[in-house]
């Protein structure tokens, strides 16, 4: 279906115009389409008229600057798209093992429900393996270098140490893959990426051919000429870098603490089990004390079970999320570096051009303007993504820590209930005995 879409801006990468929507459009509503081709009416939702002339012209540059301002305004509510206007739902579930002569691997069911026009059908169901997700991520990174791509769970696992086919490992990985896909689907730009569409819809994802059409790798940012030195990084990007470094440190510390707690709890559990066993063995030599001793042994056992569940949950749900975020931070730092490179290239070219201009009055070359555009757009995309990332991060950690608290509360509650019912049991017996004594 053709939409009278505005001209693609260079910042969105080299893609056929029809397949690209302006980043901002997704922030509010799907583009309002006027079929009729009156250019005057084809506008961005924020009302800015779109230049149909060459994107790299100085006038369009002016527009870009305006857009940047509007970008700031939209950034204040990054959640707007994900709450009311979701039209793409994805889920990863149903892991299955496949055994072939060559290899054994797991596939997951990827289900999609959507009302988007880019999709031919409203629902899709395909099977994908980790490799496919990896492919998707690489493609997204290549084609959307100015955006923050969510992380995948770790690719490599030590074959001897971790059982790749154990229920826990598969479930942990599946949850991470589901999260990855959801994050991509919620992203106003990434979710429209054709690679994603292919990933969600194509039955047999053949990576080597067919999709080459779509993978016109944006050479603009990917192959940045090296050797340019950055003069002055804007303060906000410095702040981002510092934040990421500190945050990375703190996450590392939290991971270490969580692991230490797991270890201590596990050792405690071992001793506690033996402790309960001693009460059980004591029962044999007693008569009157039989019931209280059995009761205590039972309560200790219940507490052991509760503690074991707590440990398992923390391993499966808490630690992997922390690790994911560490990977996320790494990939964001990479994007920051690329941005720096892009700015450095622009500054370098600009300097060279200025010198040449002084010498022989050559007009500003196109490349310089292109570079400037790239930098501006990169900065804009990055800032928008950063805000949305911050907001998502806040939500994720709120949830992570709240569930950690919940699990601990749960564990104590189970234990408390057991001890309380023991008291009730023993006190009932006591009143029983008293009444029989007085009789």
């Amino acid at each position, binding site marked *: 279906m053709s939409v009278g879409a505005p001209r693609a801006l260079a910042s969105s990468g080299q893609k056929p115009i029809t397949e690209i929507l302006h980043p901002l459009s997704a922030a509010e509503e799907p583009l309002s389409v006027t079929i009729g081709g009156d250019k005057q009416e084809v506008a961005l939702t924020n009302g800015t008229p779109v230049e149909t002339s060459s994107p790299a012209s100085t006038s369009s540059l002016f527009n870009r600057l305006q857009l940047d301002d509007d970008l700031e305004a939209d950034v204040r509510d990054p959640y707007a798209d994900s709450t009311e206007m979701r039209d793409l739902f994805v889920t990863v579930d149903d892991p299955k093992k496949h055994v072939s002569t060559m290899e054994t691997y797991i596939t997951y069911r990827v289900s999609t429900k959507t009302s988007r026009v880019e999709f031919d059908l409203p629902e899709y169901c395909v099977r994908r393996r980790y490799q496919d997700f990896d492919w998707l991520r690489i493609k997204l990174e290549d084609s959307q270098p100015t955006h923050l791509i969510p992380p995948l769970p770790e690719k490599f696992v030590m074959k001897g140490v971790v059982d790749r086919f154990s229920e826990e490992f598969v479930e942990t990985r599946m949850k991470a893959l589901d999260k990855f896909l959801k994050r991509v689907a919620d992203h106003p730009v990434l979710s429209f990426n054709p690679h994603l569409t292919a990933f969600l819809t194509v039955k047999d994802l053949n990576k080597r051919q067919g999709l080459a059409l779509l993978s016109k790798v944006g050479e603009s940012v990917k192959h940045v000429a090296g050797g340019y030195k950055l003069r002055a990084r804007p303060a906000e990007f410095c702040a981002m870098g510092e934040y990421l470094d500190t945050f990375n440190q703190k996450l590392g510390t939290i991971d270490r603490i969580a692991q230490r707690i797991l270890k201590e709890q596990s050792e405690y559990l071992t001793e506690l089990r033996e402790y309960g066993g001693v009460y059980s063995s004591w029962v044999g030599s007693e008569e009157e004390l039989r019931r209280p001793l059995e009761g205590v042994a039972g309560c200790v056992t219940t507490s052991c079970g509760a503690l074991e569940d707590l440990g398992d949950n923390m391993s499966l749900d808490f630690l992997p999320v922390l690790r994911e975020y560490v990977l996320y931070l790494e990939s964001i730092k990479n994007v920051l570096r690329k941005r720096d490179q892009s700015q450095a290239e622009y500054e370098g070219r600009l300097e060279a051009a200025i010198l040449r201009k002084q010498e022989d009055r050559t007009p500003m070359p196109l490349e310089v303007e292109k570079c400037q555009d790239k930098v501006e757009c990169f900065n804009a995309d990055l800032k928008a993504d950063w805000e949305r990332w911050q907001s998502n991060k806040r939500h994720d950690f709120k949830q992570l820590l709240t569930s950690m608290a919940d699990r601990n509360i749960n564990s104590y509650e189970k234990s408390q209930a057991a001890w309380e019912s023991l008291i009730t049991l*023993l006190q009932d017996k006591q009143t029983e005995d008293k009444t029989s004594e007085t009789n």
Partner: protein
Amino acid sequence: MMADSGSNEEVAVIGNTDITSTETESNIINTMVERETALLRKMEINVAEAEKRTGKNTVNMQETYTVYLIETRPAETVPGGGAPAAPDTLWRRYSEFELLRTFLLVTYPYIIIPPLPEKRAEFQWHKLAADNLDPDFVERRRVGLENFLLRVASHPVLSNDKLYFLFLTEEKGWREAVLETGFQDKVDSRLKSLSAMFRVKNPDKRFTAMKQYSDELNTVISQLLRVRARVADRLYGVYKVHGNYGRVFSEWSAIEKEMGDGLQSAGHHMDTYAAQIDDILEEEEHYADQLKEYLFYTDAVRSVCKKHELIQYELEMAAQELVSKKQQREELATGTVRVFSLKGMTSKLFGTESQEQRESRLAALEQSIQEGEETLKEKNTECKEFVQMAWQDIERFKEQKDKDLREALISYAIMQISTCKKGIQVWSNAKDCFNKM
């Protein structure tokens, strides 16, 4: 037997469950079921304080030791009226308690004598000091000594002992009074009964069973205390590591905007959580002390059983000797030798004796037999009395043990509930902070 048999009051268990349930609410859990003996009706007994002293010991060396203040005051008969009378007080050190107990052990061999708190700290989880001069150890020992005095004071037989009364009321001169009783002579026979290896032909099944039970109880409580100490160590580690969350959340909150406050406050709660373990384990020491008391009690039970064995053995020996003497008499009278005796042999080898010699021998034997019969009667009586009194005390002990340990287990359960509640409270608070992030 030194007791006045005058006031041998029977146990009147008056609303004991009420006493123990209010006591469990306070932190110091004394599960002593105080039975109304004549002594306790007369006076209240307290070990109120502990103090460090230095002085010269028996080898004239300077040493530091702790003394404990024993307070006694007449039991309140008039309710409500004015301030209670000032107590009589005296100071005693641990070694004097030991002396008292040894005296009681020797004087009442058929009674299970209550144990003293341990001399040196054992079964400690490593954070607790094992130093005898450590204030926590001294405090727990003070409680243990008070417990000991109350146990004796509420015992139907022991509470009437004069020297025990003097222990509570006469600071000077008590030591001399004890030594004057000459009880130390009996100490040897006591030791003999505990260490000797002798076989009883007809063991009393009840006592055998009791000794076996006591050994089993000893084993299981030792095990329990050992494992409990390890459990405490581990739990300490779990709680304390959570304190690290406090610091890292605080550091993290510094780089966050909206999340900062929530994280910071949650961090404080993690610190609170880490601190909880100190009180939790402190309280649990009381439970451990209750178990320890019964661990040491098993030694007292064992020694009563052993004493009985010795008496039984001596009885059997006396009976056997008498039988053998009677047989000898028979042989002398009839001239047949059934039992080998050296005298008979020598007379065979070196010629028979004269009629006179035989008659004098017979007379001596008759005398010996009479004495033997007296001895046998005494031993029999001794044994019967011992069995009766010992078994009575064993029954009393069994009831006491069942009640005390039951209460201890219930209060342990209550402690666990309290621990859970505290944990839930702190994590709920943390959760609220996380929600505000």
